[in-house]
Every structure is written in structure tokens, then in C-alpha cells.
């Protein structure tokens, strides 16, 4: 293992609807917005040169916001539209995982905010049609890895797995 590589510190998304994404991660998921960085001419030109359309974006406007997941870990949002449809079934990125200590509490909070919960990515078409189980282990909700999880989607359609480890979790048992 490389001795200089420590861990995941952020995941970054570009946004067609930046205000909606910012509101989702800040207000719906409750991540603290820790700082924002502004565009300048060089940054805008750099994106033009790599195939992005920056029409309507000007120096001084927000380029990036950082939202804190945990100490040293963030979701980074770019106020930068992409061209395609963000076909999350047909791209390299599959999903990212936010780990919680109490998945039932997380489910209840999201349900109260009207966020649909899915048993797997949305394209599997398996939404929870009733509240997430109060006793998920007793009700057989552990995945093959032994953990508990459900999926939600952000406003751009990116899949987010909300996961709680259990005493059966391979993620815990495999620690080297």
C-alpha cells in the first residue's frame, strides 16, 4: 500500500442546476457549507478549452462550494453545467456512499423531507413503498456484504448510497 495515500477526501459533481444541488446537500442532507471559491477569467477559459459551455458565468460568481461530510471529507459542487443527460446507467461513475451510524434515523429524516428511498439504484425500479423498516436486521435488510443500505438521488440524478455497518459487515471484518 502506498504510504502517502490516506483516504477519500472529496467527491465532485458539476451541476446543471447549481442552486438545487447546493440546497439538496446543504438543506436536505444537512452538510455544512464550509467555503466557496469564485470564478476568474483563467478558470472560465480553462473550462471552455476542455469542452464546457460557460455562457452566463462571469468572474466573481461562485465556481465551487465545499460541503463537509465529516472532518477532512467533503462533497464539492461545481457551478458548471455539463452537456449530456448524466446517464448514470451508462457512465463510469456508479454511486458514492455516505456512511451513517443509524440508518433508521437517517431514513426517517429523509422520509420526513419527502426524499424517496430506493432499494438499490433508481434504475432497478425498487422504491420503498412503505417507511424503511424500524428493525432492518430482523426484517432481513442486510445486503450480501452484511451492511444496511438504501439509495437516494441528488437533483442531477447522481446515486447516493446511505449505509450503516453492522457486526456482520465485510467492510469491517476485512480490515487489514
Amino acid at each position: 500500500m502506498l504510504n502517502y495515500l490516506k483516504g477519500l477526501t472529496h467527491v465532485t459533481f458539476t451541476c446543471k442546476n447549481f442552486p438545487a444541488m447546493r440546497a439538496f446537500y446543504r438543506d436536505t442532507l444537512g452538510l455544512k457549507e464550509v467555503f466557496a471559491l469564485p470564478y476568474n477569467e483563467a478558470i472560465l477559459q480553462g473550462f471552455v478549452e476542455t469542452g464546457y459551455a460557460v455562457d452566463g458565468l462571469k468572474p466573481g460568481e461562485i465556481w465551487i462550494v465545499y460541503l463537509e461530510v465529516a472532518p477532512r471529507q467533503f462533497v464539492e459542487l461545481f457551478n458548471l453545467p455539463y452537456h449530456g443527460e448524466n446517464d448514470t446507467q451508462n457512465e463510469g461513475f456508479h454511486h458514492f456512499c455516505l456512511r451513517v451510524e443509524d440508518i433508521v434515523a437517517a431514513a426517517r429524516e429523509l422520509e420526513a423531507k419527502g426524499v424517496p428511498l430506493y432499494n438499490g439504484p433508481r434504475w432497478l425500479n425498487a422504491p420503498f413503498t412503505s417507511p424503511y423498516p424500524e428493525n432492518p436486521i430482523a426484517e432481513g435488510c442486510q445486503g450480501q456484504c452484511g451492511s444496511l443500505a438504501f439509495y437516494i438521488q441528488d437533483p442531477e440524478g447522481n446515486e447516493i448510497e446511505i449505509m450503516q455497518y453492522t457486526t456482520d459487515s465485510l467492510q469491517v471484518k476485512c480490515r487489514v
Partner: protein
Amino acid sequence: MKFVEIGHIALRAKDPANFEKFYTEVLELPKAFDLTTSAGKVWIRYYQLPSGQFVEVFPGDALPGFDAKDNHYTGENRKCNRSHFHACFEVDARHEAYRDMAKKGVAISHATNDSVGMCGSWCSFITDPEGNEWELMEFSPVSRQLGDQLDNMSYNG
């Protein structure tokens, strides 16, 4: 809602062998465990990071009852056509990372004058064989990501 951590980043691989070579030989991540299909094929493979977090890969085989296309992509994975832009590993010795990547023949871009980015951190970038960009970030004493956590930083210059 309290989150403990970013647990993992999950990626699909068109070329699982080349993908695995990159993550196990370039990034030297140990394989942690596999989740398998009923036919005994790898459904999901977990690679472990020192932090206890994971990179997860879907090599393309599906569980019974599901379509393999769910776990396999045919597109070009162009960054400007998708919302996912990159993910980032924290490093604590950037010059060692630059030397190591160069030695392994992996292109790494970084500021030639060793300046920090607008966020106050040292940023460099590599790309995996599927076209997924990874940032390698080293925090500095002026990193805005750390705020009041500076006592807890590892700083190797």
C-alpha cells in the same frame, strides 16, 4: 443526520483487468473482498484504503434477475457529459506521489511552481484507464478545507 464518512466511491469497468491493474499496481490498493453472483462471478470488488474507506468496482456481471447493462457502460465516459467530475484522495507527501506516478508511467498534472490552489491545498490529478479523474490533494497550513482542524493535519512538505 450525522454522517460518519464518505464510505466508498463505486465505479464501473469496461476493461476490468486493466482497471484492476491500475488500482492494485499503480495505487497499490489491496483487494478487500468480493460480492459475487450466483454463478460465482465477481459482482462487486472492494479495494481498501488506509482510512478504512473503499473504492468499489462493478466489473460487469449482474446478479440473477438483473440486467448486466446496469453494471456495465457502453458510453465514452466523457467528463463534460456527466455530473460526476472527479473524486479525490488525500495524500501527505505530494512530491513522493509525483515521483511514484512518473516512475509508474502515469501522467500526473500539478502546479510546476509547487503553488497551492485557490483553496490553499496542493492539487494534482491522475486519470484511471476508464477515464475517471482522481485528484491527489495534500492539505497545507492554509487549506480552507481544514479550517480549525489544523492541529490535526499531517504536513510533510
